[in-house]
């Protein structure tokens, strides 16, 4: 090995220092993470009703309570067909839930509730889209020169986005009676904030040449936005709205479980009452719906914006 010159030694020393510091940072970070993790786990275990390691052997016990008498029970629960085990209890009262549309033609209870949840998500997404659409142009720095207006709209969107949905739902549940409308209000408000933020980022990345052209011929502000910006950003807007729809289906199920009606409530009730066939029927329905909505939305988004990937699945 040849001896290094003065300059070579300096370079080597610098590299060593740099590498050493880097390693120190990595090790330090890992130790910090490890300490935080062990502390958190200890804390979680202490505070939990059932201790983790005591409960672990019984982890799959609850699956026993999920085994229906026979597999066909799931189908009967799903389509509200009478059960051979019917004993007058709530557990086997499948036909009770039928929603009669006309005559003998009925919609099974859970399908109806699932539709309710989907409608909550759809209405909230449309409302969120409409308001987010109007607000986003006021928050974009390339369209609005008034700092205060931009600041105000952005903070407003941030508050809507960060405010826990469950509190809005709870507040309206206290004023209105139980039902889907508090869920719609809660999910809509959150959607306005989430979509508004994504939208104004899209608007800020828009090509301003069209806008320049419109300004040159004397277009006013609404004309510039409508003819210069909207045609460019619309595919992205729609694609974000579809992504939001996927999220909202899940969100309205969860809000439903805490009192907003729909399939979420049915699921919570049937799990807590040990109605195994009903629970499995709902989970099956929910699973298929979520997969279907995700697939449909992915397909539409691909048609709208091509293969452009949305880096994050949730985007909220």
């Amino acid at each position: 090995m040849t001896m290094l010159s003065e300059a070579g030694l300096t370079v080597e020393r610098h590299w060593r220092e740099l590498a050493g510091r880097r390693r120190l940072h990595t090790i330090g970070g890992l130790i910090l993470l490890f300490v935080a993790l062990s502390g958190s786990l200890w804390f979680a275990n202490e505070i939990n009703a059932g201790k983790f390691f005591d409960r672990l052997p019984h982890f799959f016990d609850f699956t026993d309570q999920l085994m229906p008498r026979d597999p066909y029970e799931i189908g009967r629960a799903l389509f509200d067909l009478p059960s051979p085990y019917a004993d007058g209890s709530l557990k086997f009262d499948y036909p009770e839930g039928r929603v009669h549309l006309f005559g003998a033609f009925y919609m099974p209870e859970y399908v109806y509730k699932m539709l309710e949840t989907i409608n909550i998500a759809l209405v909230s997404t449309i409302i969120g889209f409409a308001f987010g659409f109007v607000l986003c142009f006021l928050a974009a720095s390339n369209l609005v020169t008034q700092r205060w207006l931009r600041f105000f709209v952005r903070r407003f969107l941030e508050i809507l986005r960060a405010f826990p949905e469950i509190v809005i739902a709870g507040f309206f549940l206290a004023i209105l009676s139980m039902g889907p409308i508090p869920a719609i209000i809660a999910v809509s408000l959150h959607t306005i904030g989430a979509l508004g933020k994504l939208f104004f980022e899209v608007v800020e990345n828009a090509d301003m040449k069209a806008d320049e052209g419109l300004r040159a011929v004397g277009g006013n502000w609404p004309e510039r936005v409508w003819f210069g910006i909207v045609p460019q950003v619309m595919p992205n807007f729609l694609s974000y709205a579809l992504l939001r729809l996927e999220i909202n289906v899940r969100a309205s199920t969860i809000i439903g479980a805490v009192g907003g009606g729909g399939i979420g409530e049915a699921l919570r009730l049937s799990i807590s009452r040990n109605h195994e066939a009903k629970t499995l029927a709902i989970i099956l329905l929910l699973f298929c719906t979520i997969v279907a909505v995700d697939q449909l939305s992915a397909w539409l988004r691909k048609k709208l914006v091509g293969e452009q990937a949305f880096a994050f699945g949730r985007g909220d």
Partner: protein
Amino acid sequence: MTTLSLTDIQAISERHPDVFASSWRKRLTGWAVGAGFVAYLAFAWWFFAVGAVMAGGNWGIAGTYLADWVSYEIRPQVAFKDGHLEVSYPRFSSYRPDRHPDWLDITQPAGATIAGNKAPADRVVAYIGGTTQIDIAAQRVVVSHGGQTLDVTIVPRQSISVAGALPIWATQKAPGEKILADFGFAGGLQIDEEDVKIRHRFFGWENFFFDANSPFWGMSTSEVVSLMTSDQRLDPKMSNAALAWDNIVNNSEWQHGDVWLKLMQTIVMAFVGTLFASVLAFPLAFLAARNITQNRLVNQVTKRFFDFLRSVDMLIWALFFTRAFGPGPIAGISAIFFTDTGTFGKLYSEALENIDDKQREGMRSVGASPASVQRYGVVPQVLPVLISQSLYFWESNTRSATIIGAVGAGGIGLKLWEAMRTNSDWENVAYMVLLILIVVFVFDNISTALRQRLIGGKASH
């Protein structure tokens, strides 16, 4: 500057009709889509019976609930007895017959003793705001507000009668019935032949630090500080500073200690759930990535497994694990862990499939072992992206953890839900929401700062 005349414009548009007049089909599509949305919203209006539900809503109470977020009421009650008055307070009030608020001026009869929870009085004068005054004597109530006076004569437990016309801020359904007066935000009162109920609303959170049972209650900050540093112990078992801290943490109205503990649970749920999901999803993503594991079957099985975890909603996992582990953060951790293993697996494997192949080729060309190829050829490229994605979800999971908490997975969500159910603790709801917003804001900033350091420039999301 060239100016086009009207004929020029027409000539140009005649020559290029396709540019200036969009086809009717295109125009119609816009209208049809708009009409479709309106029709759908009309359907939804009918489907959810929005009109009926809105009309049936208890909107009068909404203002009070909202006001409760940031203010509180003190409600003394003055009952008419034979020849004298009795002042009392609701059960959980901070005030007692031996401790009256300073805006209540009570003239006690000579030699009277406080019996039970009622204080006897000859005359009670309440000052609400600067100009409003309520003067209550044994058989007469005089209320002056906004330049108008309400003069009510009372025969205890028999009748009430108003002298002259009612002021605009007072209402009475029929002569002889109870009289309601409303002073806006500041409060109001209700007079009937039994008693006068006064409401006085104050801005702020009542007893935020010390509840009414604490020896520090009602003291100014400087008084509290001087008492805390004083040597004369209020409680022989502990110093005054320790006692003050104990009183704050165990404040019976605000339950600071419990709220902080629950908030900590939620934070822990999000942190551990996200971390575990990242750690498990990392190796699995290598199995799912087409370009790394050259086995279609393994790829497909892993990817469908991710889809399954993701599509069974976080709610379902949360309900399941609440059954398995009992309510508490472990159920929440597991729910986040299962859902996000699916999400991270999908995102990570997509990131792995988009890597630059040249670095792996380089590693392979110098004869590195397969493990080294992954370690030095793949990991350095994707690690910043993967960590950045996990950090993003860490922040978002803090919010999710709040919600699944409410279905039984524990943490602040459950406490928040319980506080809302009582319909009387909206100030506690406001406090918890504020704490959640602060936590989300802090985590958002930490996560953004870390992500910017990792992937440089503007962190995408």
